[in-house]
């Protein structure tokens, strides 16, 4: 399969390459007459409760929940690290459940209750998890940190609620906030600075268990 692909591209390259010199052409926007007018993007109204406040937006239907938060509501605490669900920096809670907000369209959240990092605490009044991250130095550059903290808060909630995980030997047993359990559940949140060991200490303190 890869062989035929290579041949196809090579043939195309050959044809183009033999078509004489490279004349770069560009069309400036003002002068352009060539293409027909394209339809305007579809927009939709959506109303969400964000950090306890009712917020109504008229958004492009392609806008992700993450971009609605960051670009429209100016809640830039939720971070864009990869924009396709690989890093966890955009983690927020929807109806108490954590999600990757980059993998969700804003218009899917009509009536939803969204909690972002800004809804947990402020620099003057930190949420206990935020305070524990500061105390245990559970961050370095700070870019993945809001996602880590939202996940950490949600993970302790999941364990309390008895949601099972891959790390449990017996998925019907009651999960405990052990190191292995928390590490497994936090593994969707990447920290390239490598603060994992300290994040676990922060979570352990908030969970009220021995490290």
């Amino acid at each position: 399969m890869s062989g035929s692909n290579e041949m196809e591209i090579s043939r195309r390259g050959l044809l183009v390459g033999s078509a004489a010199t490279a004349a770069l052409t560009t069309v400036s926007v003002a002068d352009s007459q060539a293409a027909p007018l394209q339809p305007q993007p579809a927009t939709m109204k959506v109303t969400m409760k964000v950090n306890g406040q009712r917020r109504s937006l008229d958004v492009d239907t392609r806008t992700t929940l993450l971009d609605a938060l960051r670009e429209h509501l100016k809640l830039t605490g939720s971070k864009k690290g990869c924009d396709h669900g690989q890093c966890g920096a955009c983690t927020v809670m929807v109806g108490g459940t954590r999600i990757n907000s980059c993998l969700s369209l804003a218009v899917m959240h009509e009536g939803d209750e969204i909690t972002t990092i800004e809804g947990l605490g402020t620099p003057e009044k930190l949420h206990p998890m935020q305070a524990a991250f500061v105390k245990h130095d559970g961050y370095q550059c700070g870019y993945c940190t809001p996602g880590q903290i939202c996940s950490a808060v949600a993970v302790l909630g999941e364990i309390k609620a008895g949601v099972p995980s891959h790390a449990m030997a017996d998925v019907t047993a009651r999960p405990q906030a052990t190191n292995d359990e928390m590490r497994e559940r936090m593994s969707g949140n990447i920290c390239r600075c490598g603060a994992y060991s300290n994040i676990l200490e922060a979570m352990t303190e908030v969970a009220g268990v021995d490290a």
Partner: protein
Amino acid sequence: MNFDAPAGPNLIDRMQVVGKPYDRIDGPLKTTGTAPYAYERHDVAPNAAYGHVVGAAIAKGRIVRIDTAEAATAPGVIAIVTAANAGVLGKGDFIDAPALAGPVVTHYHQAVALVVADTFEQARAAGAMVQVDYARAAGRFDLASEKSSATLAPTSPPTMRGDFAGAFAAAPVKIDRIYTTPDQSHMMMEPHATIAEWAGDRLTVWTSVQTIDWGRRDLAKILGMPKDRVRISSPYIGGGFGGKATAMADVVLAALGARAAKRPVKVALARPMMVNGTVHRAATIQRLRIGVANDGRILAIGHETVSGNLPDGMVEPCTIQTPSLYAGENRMTETRLAVLDLPEASSMRAPGEAPGMMALEIAMDELAEALAMDPVELRVRNDAKVHPGDGKRPFSTRALVPALRTGAERFGWSARIPKPAQVRDGRWLVGMGVASAIRGARTRTSGARARLETSGRVVIETDMTDIGTGSYTIIAQTAAEMMGLPLDRIDVRLGESDYPVTVGSVGQRGATSATSGVYAACVKLREAVAQRLGLNAADVGFDGGRVVSGGRRIPLADAASGGPLVGEDEVEFGEELGKAYAQEAFGAHFVEVGVDRFTGEVRLRRMLAVCAAGRILNPKTARSQVIGAMTMGAGAALMEELAIDKRFGFFVNHDLASYEVPVHADMPHMDVVFLDETDATISPMKAKGVGELGLSGVAPAIANAVYNATGVRVRDYPMTLEKHLAKLPRIV
């Protein structure tokens, strides 16, 4: 302030604030999501348009035709930048590959166009409408194939001492091995991002650049404008590791886009564009030849390396540590560069030492086994009194042996069974490994401005950056120490090109250099305070928020009652000390792994680093630097590898799912020990860096632990399970 002689006793020695494990002063902002990163500056550019980068679909060749007609009429589109309308672009000093292709394409995902539109969604949709025809050219994409044509790298000249060939030939015990390390990606969490705005012929960029002055210099050169008309602001940087050392493609494209759109433009590189579209750490092929006497003393040591890059690109200087680390009269190193047509390779955390130690420290483990000698003991036996490469310079400090001994004691090294594959724990084969750590302790001229406000607070301004390293906090601690104030009376402002120039966050030299600049500025501010108060600067003390002279204790704020006072200076590091002393930071890494005897999966069980890096300015943030480096080292050992498509010449796994980095579940609890040390030859702070020391040696310690667990020696990083699975001890 000149620094060309070892520091005597000074104010930092008081260690009332410096050296204490304070929480980061930027912690409340970072943990609440209120620290503003580059792309988030709605406050400075509320009307910014969105730029979407269209990346080249070939690795090498030419653009034959580019058709932007359809994209130009797409809804919301304001401007489209291509090489045809971007004007002539120059070259920066640090990065060679042009940000914008046309007609020549030098690498895959090089920008061929920037589409600027009112919204992100519009720009992205229009970007997909840009039609490009390419003429592909053949390229060189395989380091092993190009190895024989590699030439000596002028930036890393060969080193030689004694008669290597003769001594190696005559050595009773020797090894001659090839080790390979793969291309690696920085993968910092914040993608390269910039907001650019023009005001007439002046340009401001809010961006994410580790070294502000390099970014300013290179951006000005690329755009062909005077440096003083470029302003850069990077107060918060979401990681860099060398990948944001200077102005990268996002900065150039945002500036071009803003000029074309006549309004501010924001550009972030999409995650899948970062790997091929910017820079990476080059793969290496290294040969180690070490000959020893029967008692373990090194008689001959030779280290050769080759890496690939663009013709003018940097070489990965993997032999850099070899002349400094172990004793031996007869030695040689050679560092070669092969020309490759892959994306440009550049600096990634501990360039040279990180991959260099990955080879050298497995070689030492192999040698210890050949000698039937403990690997810690072999290293101790080859400690050096003077720099082994030149046989002359003393080390300013050299705590390699204390690091190894302390680590062995703390880790329980004596329990290690030298014969591999002897320890079982259920389904796990268990092993322990060790490696030395070394990283150059360099400095570079750095300045700062210290201002006493009428409120009595002190504001520090420098263009130093905090990329997660803790710069904000150690700079505040330095100022607090110097001015006799509590930490919460200091405000630190970083990352602005209007502020005094520093080395920035590169090469593990930022902490000691930038805080020394603050030290110098505070010396000036103290003089200004004394003068304003009519006191003799020589016998004035600063303590508890007061200026103390004779029996008088004057509130510091009184000195500024008539208006703020400013002290500004830079510390200029002479070359004398580096010539008189070999200046390196040392350490040792200890690791215990479990290898699943059925699947070959490697799990880290325990990790310990012992570091001797001069004065530790803040043990909490310094420890975080080290555990972060150990995590990156775990990635280098076990999973990180950019896979090359050698037909088309690009890195295939160019995102965070397919380029695997360590996650929570991969990392055990880690321990770090700092040995008590000051090094007066480095700076007034007597400190060295730790951020790269913490990485140099981690991966080979893991590799050696895996060998001790399995008895299968893998010399080709990363140590993924298929490389040893078929050779694991038989299951009976």
